[in-house]
């Protein structure tokens, strides 16, 4: 019998507010780990902010902003090992940077250039999933396969609050549970699916409640608290590696930026709440924490930020230096053994275009 555990009610929190709420700490994290977490947060933040600028400058296409989601991505990422597989949605497009993927690769993806389409096996990071929640069964299947092969790796799949309304989420969650797949279902609940608030998405009290029906243990964390996210994910990873199957994490935050560069949230969002969320955003919150515990100096902070900026400058330069792809790529990669008709189509296309 699968054990049905009630979802946690309160949000887990580690970082205090420097006033009435005290700071806690996560066992097992030393000073260098804390700095690494900060480095990841800053890298993601820099990537995101520069990308919005690049979009305005016409250097990348429509871009899904993740400003304010960095703690959920960096915190969960640091609980993983390199052989664990990551299944990102478009909101986690740049999570590969944390595993050494060049910024140019991700920027190229947003430029619609083929050099942005990586080999998942090179990073153990699946392709960016554009449709909502359809990658949840992939993460379940991969993790199930790992278990069948006796490997220790697990998978983590990222999706938003709106995704929990999709059938693919439910089928994937159920598969993961039934197959005892070492998978982590990571829900970044930022309160909004474009313009639809969570209240219009579900009558469940929490999104974590949805896991209960599948016999999947669920935790709720403050998604702006990188240490709480890290700890909750580490717990889930331990369960996965111990053969106890999947876990669900609901990380709660408030979307303080547009859904994407093409979105104007002023039509639907409460500016007061946005202002509050921005004042309490995750990177500065962690920075203040690191200063309170004397881990971060001005000098180190400056170094980390300038490294991130340099990576982005090099990234956009490299992405823009990519040659225009040949149209022959239209007919490549879809099949191992392409039909003769494609060769004919390409020859005809070249004849017409070459005049």
């Amino acid at each position, binding site marked *: 019998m699968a054990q049905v555990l009630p979802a946690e009610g309160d949000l887990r929190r580690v970082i205090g507010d420097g006033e009435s709420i005290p700071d806690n700490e996560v066992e097992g994290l030393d000073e260098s780990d804390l700095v690494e977490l900060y480095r990841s947060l800053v890298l993601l933040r820099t990537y995101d902010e520069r990308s919005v600028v690049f979009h305005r400058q016409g250097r990348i296409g429509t871009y899904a902003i993740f400003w304010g989601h960095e703690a959920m991505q960096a915190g969960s990422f640091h609980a993983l090992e390199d052989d664990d597989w990551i299944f990102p949605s478009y909101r986690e497009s740049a999570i590969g940077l944390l595993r050494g993927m060049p910024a140019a690769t991700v920027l190229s993806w947003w430029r619609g250039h083929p050099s942005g389409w*990586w*080999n998942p*096996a090179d990073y153990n990071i699946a392709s960016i999933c554009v449709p909502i929640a359809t990658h949840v*069964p*992939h993460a379940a299947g991969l993790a199930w396969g790992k278990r*069948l092969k006796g490997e220790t790796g697990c998978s983590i799949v990222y999706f938003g609050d709106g995704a929990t309304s999709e059938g693919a989420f439910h089928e994937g969650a159920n598969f993961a549970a*039934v197959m005892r797949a070492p998978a982590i279902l990571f829900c970044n609940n930022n309160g909004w699916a474009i313009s639809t608030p969570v209240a219009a998405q579900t009558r469940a009290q929490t999104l974590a409640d949805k896991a209960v029906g599948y016999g999947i243990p669920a935790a709720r964390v403050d998604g702006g608290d990188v240490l709480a996210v890290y700890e909750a994910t580490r717990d889930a990873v331990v369960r996965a590696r111990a053969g106890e199957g999947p876990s669900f994490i609901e990380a709660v935050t408030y979307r303080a930026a547009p859904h994407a560069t093409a979105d104007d949230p002023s039509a639907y969002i409460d500016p007061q709440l946005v202002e509050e969320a921005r004042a309490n955003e995750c990177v500065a919150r962690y920075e203040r924490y690191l200063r309170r515990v004397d881990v971060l100096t001005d000098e180190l902070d400056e170094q980390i930020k300038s490294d991130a900026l340099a990576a982005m400058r090099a990234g956009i330069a490299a992405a823009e230096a990519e040659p225009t792809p040949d149209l022959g790529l239209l007919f490549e*990669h879809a099949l191992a053994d392409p039909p003769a008709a494609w060769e004919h189509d390409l020859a005809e296309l070249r004849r017409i275009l070459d005049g």
Partner: protein
Amino acid sequence: MAERFLVEAVNDALHVEMERDAAVMVLGEDVGQAGGVFRATAGLRDRFGVNRCVDTPLAEAGILGSAVGLCMAGFRPVCEMQYDAFSYPCLDQLITHVGRYRWRTGGKMTFPLTIRMPYGGGVRAPELHDDSPETYYVHTPGIKVAIPSTPADAKGLLAAAIRDPDPVVIFEPKLVYRTARGDVPDGEHVVPLGKARLARAGFDLTLVAYGAMVPVCERAADELDASVEVLDIRSLKPLDEDALLASAAKTGRVVLVQEAPRTCGYAAELAAILAEKAILDLRGPVLRVTGYDVPYPYWSIEDAYMPSVARVVDAARRLLEF
């Protein structure tokens, strides 16, 4: 060589391919303990264990979506969709991921998964146990599709599908699961995708079909007072265009037969190819005998929906007299 029913040939192929390659696993609803509602997977669980012949939750998108992840983990999953029309939930995964993932990885990762399902009508079943949904699959880039009509091809095409580096969908004509009987090679037997089968040679007219419509065409050929060729397409994508054009060039008269509804059905694609590439060989219009553009009917009148010998003969006569 042994004489087998078509569904037994499917079962034989699964046994042989799972024996041959430990990465091959079967997953689907009722495929394990029960051996499949049509017994296509009978014996696999006993032979290969519960981890290689897996009873899944009742979730077609979950089955196919998990199979994508299993491919990434190094498996070659064979997914059973229990019935043609039960496969529609899996189209989400098929269209958004299965046909695109290899391309998405720049050709670096392969997704060697197989989907197999019984399809077609004439079996006196409730609604949505009778559909011919091949067009949805054929229309999806990155997907190959084959439909056998004989036991030997049912084994050989399924083996080819399982060994193929890309996703292949096999539709099995359930109407003839236990009536089509024929010699099936023992052991490994592969029928390459992309090759049609000349079921019968003739000079006056060609009947083109696949799956359960092939025997209908063969019976129609018997009734016609003419030399009739019957071309079993069997591999819809990739298509053996040369075989189609060669037959059209030879007879100059082509009747296309499909069980699926007419509009944008597979026969429409064949007709377009003939119009583009065989126009000067044709001695009359290309005719289609198909299901109608209606929901698959109440089974008490389903025989009127299905392309019958009489309808094929009628079309053939009109063309011969054109």
